[in-house]
């Protein structure tokens, strides 16, 4: 990590959208034109070794499918945001979703924990199972579902409460048994924030820097021990140093959780993910395969064009 090359094409978004989540296209302002495939294949690995060409070559460790999507269609009023998405997201490891703005990758992420239910205009059609149970069955309580799926948003959004109360929020509302102090400490340790905040847990979460706030949000999401962790461009509002910290963190979280991450940044997807899904305009899932395959030898011409920067 220390000699991590911070490439200038890190998509550092400084947009300050207040409600990125309501927007079906949350990161329309992020720029993509500088993403180059050569950078992906030649950039230095986070461990300082280059033999893996920047890839996390752990596809063999990928487990059973935990999320199975079948023919998911989503409309916002009359606009179709997702078209017939079918994919199996494996248990544990990191699954990345990349694609141009407005291609529906965030929308798909929000289908998994039914956050789209909160948008009046959104309509979801199709089956999506989490651990074998279709989450769109009529007997599924979306609130109970969200308690098993953690979510981290694009813009750090800690509550205006103390650091401790932020992390303990899920424990409090879900009435989790056990020693909350210990759970909070563990979550902060896993989020690599403990050393920075251990002495000032009663300070406001808003007093932390942007990268610390995002790690606080990750700690908050993992404190109730969810099965799946959804991340909607978690690093796009952060500077390169904070971004690399978040990436390290995702790497270590993948040992324990199923991480599904939406990103605009192709190098990021290449660095941290085991599987990559490429969404293209019109809400189509064009290709979904092992990350290495997608970036080195994609089947689909449009995916290759997108990754090599010919379009997108």
């Amino acid at each position: 990590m220390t000699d991590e090359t911070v490439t200038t094409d890190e998509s550092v978004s400084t947009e300050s959208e207040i409600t990125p989540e309501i927007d079906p296209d949350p990161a329309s302002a992020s720029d993509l034109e500088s993403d180059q495939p050569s950078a992906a294949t030649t950039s230095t690995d986070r461990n300082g070794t280059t033999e893996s060409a920047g890839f996390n070559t752990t596809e063999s460790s990928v487990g059973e499918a935990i999320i199975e999507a079948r023919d998911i269609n989503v409309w916002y009023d009359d606009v179709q945001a997702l078209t017939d998405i079918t994919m199996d997201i494996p248990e544990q490891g990191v699954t990345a979703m990349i694609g141009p703005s407005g291609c529906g990758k965030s929308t798909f992420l929000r289908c998994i924990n039914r956050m789209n239910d909160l948008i009046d205009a959104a309509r979801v059609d199709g089956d999506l199972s989490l651990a074998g149970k279709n989450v769109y069955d009529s007997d599924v309580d979306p609130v109970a579902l969200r308690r098993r799926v953690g979510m981290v948003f694009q813009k750090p959004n800690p509550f205006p409460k103390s650091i401790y109360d932020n992390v303990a929020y899920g424990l409090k509302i879900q009435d989790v048994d056990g020693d909350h102090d210990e759970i909070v400490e563990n979550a902060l340790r896993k989020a690599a924030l403990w050393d920075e905040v251990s002495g000032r847990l009663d300070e406001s979460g808003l007093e932390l820097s942007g990268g610390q706030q995002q790690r606080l949000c990750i700690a908050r999401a993992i404190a109730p021990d969810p099965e799946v962790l959804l991340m909607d461009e978690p690093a796009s509002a952060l500077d390169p140093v904070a971004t690399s910290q978040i990436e390290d963190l995702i790497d270590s979280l993948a040992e324990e959780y199923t991480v599904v991450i939406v990103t605009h940044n192709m190098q990021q997807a290449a660095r941290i993910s085991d599987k990559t899904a490429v969404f293209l305009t019109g809400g189509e899932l064009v290709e979904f395969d092992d990350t290495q395959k997608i970036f080195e030898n994609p089947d689909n011409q449009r995916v290759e064009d997108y990754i090599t920067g010919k379009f997108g």
Partner: protein
Amino acid sequence: MATDTNTNTNTETASGFGEVSRIRGVVFRYVLLVATLSGLVSLGMLLTNVAVDAIRPFSADPGWYATYLVAFLCPSVLVGLFLYSNNRDALAVGVEGLFVPIAGLFGAGTLLLLFEAIAFYVWFAWIAAIAVPALVYAGCRALDLSTRTRTIAVLVIGWIALLGVPVSRFVAVPDTLPLTIESIPSHVLTLLVLGIPEYIQFHVLTIPNRYLTYLFTLALPAALYMGHRVRHKESWRFGLLTSALVIIAALSVVFQIVLPPGTVLILVLAAAVPTAYYVVMTIRHRPDVRIGLLFPAVIVVGALLGRALVWLLGMDGPTAWIDMAFLTSTPSGMPKTTGINPALVGSLLLMVVVIASSFPLGVGAAVYLEEYAPDTWYTRFIQLNISNLAGVPSVVYGLLGLGLFINLGGFSGQTVSIAGTTVTLSGLPAGSLLAGGLAISLLILPIVIISSQEAIRSVPDSLRQASFGMGATQWQTIKNVVLPRSIPGILTGTILAIGRAVGETAPLIMVLAADFKVTPPTSLFDKTSALPLQVYNWAFLPDEAFRHGVLAAGVVTMIVVLLSINSIAIVVRNKYETEQQ
């Protein structure tokens, strides 16, 4: 006033870039300035006149002014200028330090006026009854019982404490109970049957006096609270010490004789304790600005010194219409001895009714409209009409209050028979505290709703998303995220609306509140007077002294009340702004 807007110079010049005329702009700018100032200046002149009438500054000895100039004004200004030039933060602390005792005195005065209307033994009985479920709740928390057990325990015990065991209303209890060992069982029985408030009021023969009542119900909680605060900031031992000091301060007032001990107790708790806390905390924790405390010290010492000097030298101050006697005596036919006390107490109690009724309703409506209501044509219709209601003339609300609360929409006085028993419907008594307060509540309800909606809308949606994403229900999100974040805005808006309600006259006239009443209301159903009504009454009395002197004193009282309410709003807003960002 510059009104010659037709002046327009030609901008033709021979060389260079030429010039663009700005005359119209400049004229416009000054017209705006005049428009801005005209209102303020005329209002300022009116208020100055009123203040001069009320205080009569020219009736004082010149020596009186000279004494205060030397003893009070000069040192204060010098110290203020010194701090201003050296350390502005210290001056800010000094001003804050001056504000704390003044606010404390205001609070003490308000409490004293309110306690005037509430009989102390009634107060004691209700506080004792409320303390029981509160203790049960604390006990349940300490024992780590589940939320459901806790809720049931508090509700059951609270019901019995307040109202008695429901079925036992039919059990006959003795009218008088001797305080002997043998009668303890019947005491317990009576307590269970009647609930604590009624039991204490009618069956405890040794009711604590006013001073002891305040000692138990005010000094004890204040001591615990201060101890808790200090413990949080300092240490366990300091916390205990603080609690003990507060109790000692409250006890020591027994020995003084100038004022009734109950009054002194409230003064000590509301003014002296917060001031001492502020001073000690500033000295201990903010060494760089503690010099600022010099400012309030010089002002207080100067004021006392000036008072002592004019008393020693025998110089008379202004014979103001507004003084302590004016605030504490009842209205009478004599301008010299008349007072505003019942109207002042009535206005304060009206505000209590207004807050108690409009705050929960208004905030509830705002939460519903912002968080729950779907965006349909009828919610938009409701929304539009709430905005319209905010502009309805207050006299109309008075009529509504009269028709609704006093006449019950025409049904008051009619009899209905339900299941064999005949009941005569009757509205609230005309001009009663409750009817007046509810009428004013109707008036400010739209303002409370709209300002609360603004505050709730300003909570970033990303926080709601974060909460929902954690698996919170809508209720949990509102309770834990939306309301805590929006409460400063809600409070500010509500307090400003209350400020407006203080001056409302028309609804009170319509519900037949008194414009001249010699006793403050003692119950919710008692006829009340109010400040603006009393002022209105004085304006038409034949005696010149009433129309010029007493009226002005009443107006000054009203404006001071209004400004205090507005300053509460400012303090609340500033406090939360610094806390949240």
